């Protein structure tokens, strides 16, 4: 590796603009004549709309127009949809209810948009929004997914009787039941996975600009995948054909999944811009974000894990109810199915697995992918069960895991996934050494002398990244392919632009991707520009989620670089009158191997564009594109160990240490990878200790609608983390990369809860482990 190449901890190129206040986020964008949108939102969780009266609002100062759902419908704007078809076990397709961008007949959760005000200022728009009169006929409400499935509950969508969206299964139920019947021991657990709000620090925003001269729309938006946004808005929502719609996702201030989806506001602002003839900007406030950003998790599960007399797992049986909220968000159906149940084998050789998943409508915000998306739910369920089983069986948690580790690859699990490579002992051993597990007993004794309780817990996670190959996900119901694209454009002076279909919203692509190119061509990273986030500049691409930008996005760049290099070698060979097969690329030049003959990279580029002296029949120019469709998912895995100290008098938990040992395959920029792990762990600790979305069960009002009630992890809630990596390269992509964006959030919650339950001697604890819950558990523990 060079100082800027693969493996180097290069300081990020993009930092300067963020550090000097020159980042360009959607809310920073303006357009001539721009006006501001404020949405009128339902204060009811479930109600029929009887009447909307905008007469007074329209006369208020600064108001341009007030638009509602009937007008939107009349203009032919389509319904929001879920793009992943799941069939129930009886073969019937999922029952998707209607989601209008502006509700016209029924509102189904608090925050459902019913009208939009466009005005000269946000303040005036808000004044007018309060003057819009909406007569609601309130309907009964249900927010709990288990309750929503019971008889006699409020019916949320007529398309989904009993609020059941689908009843899906995976695996061999009969084999599992046989194994449980013959087991030496069965561990049973009820597992709740708490609902979370993703909370990227940049709230969602959009600026819709309609240009009547060209009959063309521009949409600035806080998106992780601008091309997907354009595709969906064109193909399904009838906003505009793709060639008439440019989507730009400029700097985006974090996403964590919540900015994958196309929300009503983008659609409405584009439509409103055409209706009003002015550019229309909407910026969410934090309360709106809590109300309307897609939430994550919210599973209720029961699990049975069967063991033989040698402590080997013989079967796993899981029953899960997953709350999808009031509407099916874009990928909501995939999260509790193919991103969840397919990971239930964990790092273990389990001969039989069966999972049944029912998804449910409730009067709550839509639920979709949030960092990890299904895999944290699988890992939490599995790793809480493993720790519980170890306690019941009276053996050490590490030993129980070792007994059951998969050690030969490839390994076909009973739930679709085929693990390609891994070394689970390596990460377990690394984590246990880093955490000084041997010294725990002494540390616990020291804590107890101070009246404190100390506990230690681990979690061995596996996840699947990349979300590919396209044909496979297509056969499982995905509405899109999950490849990635790249174009490498070498300029005449040798500098390079890379157009990538991936999107960076904090991941550092402008640096990492440039390192890849620099490493390959031997040119400085300052001569390389990574271009993303604009459908007019970049070819169709699929964006960033599922930790796919390294494994899939960079692999596409590799493929394009292969083509660029091949052509450059031909040109260099021609210039130096050498054999093409003797040309090597080194230190920014093309050299004839074994000689001192070379042509600088810049000269090859110039030759390609002057085209004065190219091989016969060669086209001028040096620009190549590629689409990469991976052969398999990638399987990052690792071991996390958490040690806590609990104050038994108050229930307050302090994290004494947190260790992460991950296997991400090859790493381009270790500093950035560590940063991804830190952030993921913080979100996982947030889930386990602090965060939880709560609705009032009777009214459906959101009780955690601001940071006053939704506890975000702050600096003093967290320790510094001890992170390390081991490396079994992924055999299925050219870089051997596995992906690192979600691991931290996947592996950490069970480690923390296992630690607290160890400390207090009471296994009955749900997330978030708030001080009161822990205090109450201490009263009934040992």
């Amino acid at each position, binding site marked *: 590796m060079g100082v800027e190449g693969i493996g180097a901890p290069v300081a*990020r190129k993009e930092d300067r603009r*963020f550090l000097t*206040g020159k980042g360009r986020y959607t809310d920073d964008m303006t357009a001539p004549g721009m006006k501001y949108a404020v949405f009128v939102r339902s204060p009811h969780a479930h109600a029929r709309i009887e009447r909307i009266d905008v007469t007074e609002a329209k006369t208020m100062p600064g108001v341009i127009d007030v638009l509602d759902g009937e007008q939107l419908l009349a203009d032919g704007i389509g319904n929001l949809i879920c793009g992943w078809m799941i069939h129930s076990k009886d073969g019937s397709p999922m029952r998707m209810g209607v989601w209008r961008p502006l509700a016209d007949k029924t509102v189904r959760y608090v925050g459902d948009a019913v009208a939009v005000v466009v005005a000269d200022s946000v303040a005036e728009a808000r004044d007018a929004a309060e003057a819009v009169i909406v007569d609601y006929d309130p309907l009964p409400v249900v927010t709990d997914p288990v309750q929503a499935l019971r008889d006699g509950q409020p019916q949320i969508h007529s398309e989904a009787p009993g609020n059941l969206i689908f009843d899906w299964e995976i695996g061999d139920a009969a084999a599992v039941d046989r194994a449980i019947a013959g087991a030496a021991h069965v561990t049973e657990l009820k597992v709740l996975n708490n609902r979370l709000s993703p909370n990227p620090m940049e709230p969602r925003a959009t600026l819709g600009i309609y240009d009547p001269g060209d009959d063309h729309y521009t949409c600035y938006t806080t998106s992780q995948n601008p091309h997907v946004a354009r595709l969906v808005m064109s193909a399904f929502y009838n906003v505009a054909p793709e060639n008439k719609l440019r989507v730009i996702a400029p700097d985006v201030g974090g996403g964590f999944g919540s900015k994958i989806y196309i929300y009503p506001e983008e659609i409405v602002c584009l439509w409103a811009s055409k209706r009003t003839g002015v550019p229309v900007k909407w910026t969410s406030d934090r309360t709106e974000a809590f109300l309307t950003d897609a939430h994550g998790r919210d599973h209720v599960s029961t699990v049975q894990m069967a063991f033989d007399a040698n402590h080997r797992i013989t079967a796993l049986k899981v029953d899960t109810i997953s709350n999808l909220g009031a509407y099916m968000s874009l990928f909501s159906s995939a999260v509790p199915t193919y991103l969840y149940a397919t990971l239930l084998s964990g790092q273990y050789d389990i001969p039989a697995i069966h999972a049944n998943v029912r998804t449910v409508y409730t009067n709550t915000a839509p639920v979709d992918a949030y960092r990890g998306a299904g895999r944290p739910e699988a890992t939490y369920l599995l790793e809480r069960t493993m720790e519980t089983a170890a306690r019941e069986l009276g053996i050490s948690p590490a030993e129980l895991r070792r007994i059951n580790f998969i050690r030969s690859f490839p390994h076909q699990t009973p739930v679709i996934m085929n693990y390609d490579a891994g070394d689970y002992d390596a990460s377990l051993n690394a984590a246990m050494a880093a955490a000084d597990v041997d010294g725990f007993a002494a540390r616990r004794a020291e804590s107890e002398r101070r009246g404190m309780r100390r506990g230690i817990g681990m979690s061995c996670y596996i996840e699947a990244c990349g979300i590919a190959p396209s044909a496979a996900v297509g056969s499982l119901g995905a509405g899109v392919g999950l490849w990635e694209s790249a174009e490498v454009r070498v300029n005449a002076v040798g500098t390079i632009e890379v157009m990538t279909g991936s999107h960076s919203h904090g991941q550092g692509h402008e640096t990492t991707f440039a390192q890849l190119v620099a490493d390959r061509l031997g040119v400085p990273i300052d001569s390389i520009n990574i271009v993303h986030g604009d459908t007019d500049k970049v070819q169709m691409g699929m964006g960033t989620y599922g930790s796919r930008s390294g494994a899939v996005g960079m692999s596409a760049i590799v493929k394009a670089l292969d083509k660029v290099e091949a052509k450059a070698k031909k040109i260099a060979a021609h210039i130096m009158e050498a054999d093409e097969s003797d040309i090597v690329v080194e230190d920014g030049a093309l050299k004839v191997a074994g000689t001192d003959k070379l042509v600088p990279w810049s000269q090859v580029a110039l030759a390609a564009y002057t085209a004065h002296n190219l091989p016969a029949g060669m086209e001028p120019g040096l620009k190549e594109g590629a689409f990469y469709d991976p052969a398999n998912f990638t399987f990052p895995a690792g071991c996390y160990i958490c040690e806590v100290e609990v104050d038994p008098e108050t229930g307050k938990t302090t994290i004494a240490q947190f260790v992460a040992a991950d296997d991400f395959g090859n790493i381009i920029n270790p500093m950035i990878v*560590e*940063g991804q792990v830190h952030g993921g762990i913080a979100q996982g600790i947030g889930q386990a200790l602090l965060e939880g979305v709560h609705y009032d069960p009777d009214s459906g009002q959101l009780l955690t609608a601001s940071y*006053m009630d939704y506890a975000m992890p702050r*600096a003093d809630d*967290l320790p510094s983390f001890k992170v390390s990596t081991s490396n079994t390269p992924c055999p299925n992509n050219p870089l051997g990369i596995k992906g690192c964006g979600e691991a931290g959030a996947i592996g950490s919650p069970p480690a923390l809860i296992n630690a607290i339950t160890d400390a207090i001697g009471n296994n009955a604890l749900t997330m978030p482990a708030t001080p009161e819950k822990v205090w109450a558990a201490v009263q009934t523990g040992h």
Partner: protein
Amino acid sequence: MAKITMTVNGRQVAGTCDDRTLLVHFIRENLGLTGTHVGCDTTQCGTCVILMDGQSVKSCSILAAQAEGSAITTIEGLAQQGELHPVQAAFNAHHGLQCGFCTPGMVMTAVDMIRRHGGNLDEGRVRAELEGNICRCTGYHNIVKAILAAAAAMGGARQAAE
């Protein structure tokens, strides 16, 4: 309407706005300095932190009219002659930012923290001092590291975080 004059990043500025206009909106919209952000409605996230008369404040919870006559420093005013402030340089060197949205508030907070505590910063104090700033990307690990490094570069903190 309020008539506002203030010194922003060393330059005298003037403008008019509604009495109800928040300082952050005056800075972003009237002055076009969009480095200062808004991330919550409840005075908690700290993406809007600026210096007013030398002290860190949350510009989302102050009216522009309240700041009349004051001296303001925003993130745009920190680097001098293109040279990053030591805090900015440390955030870059230690990967103290990812999406960049909380970063301006974090950097201004760190500048104020180092002004008040200088060499008396350690990891625990830095974490406590960050109570008013939320970051969702970094887990704070590298922010803490960057602030301690900056404090050391600016005159000596006790020790760097791991």
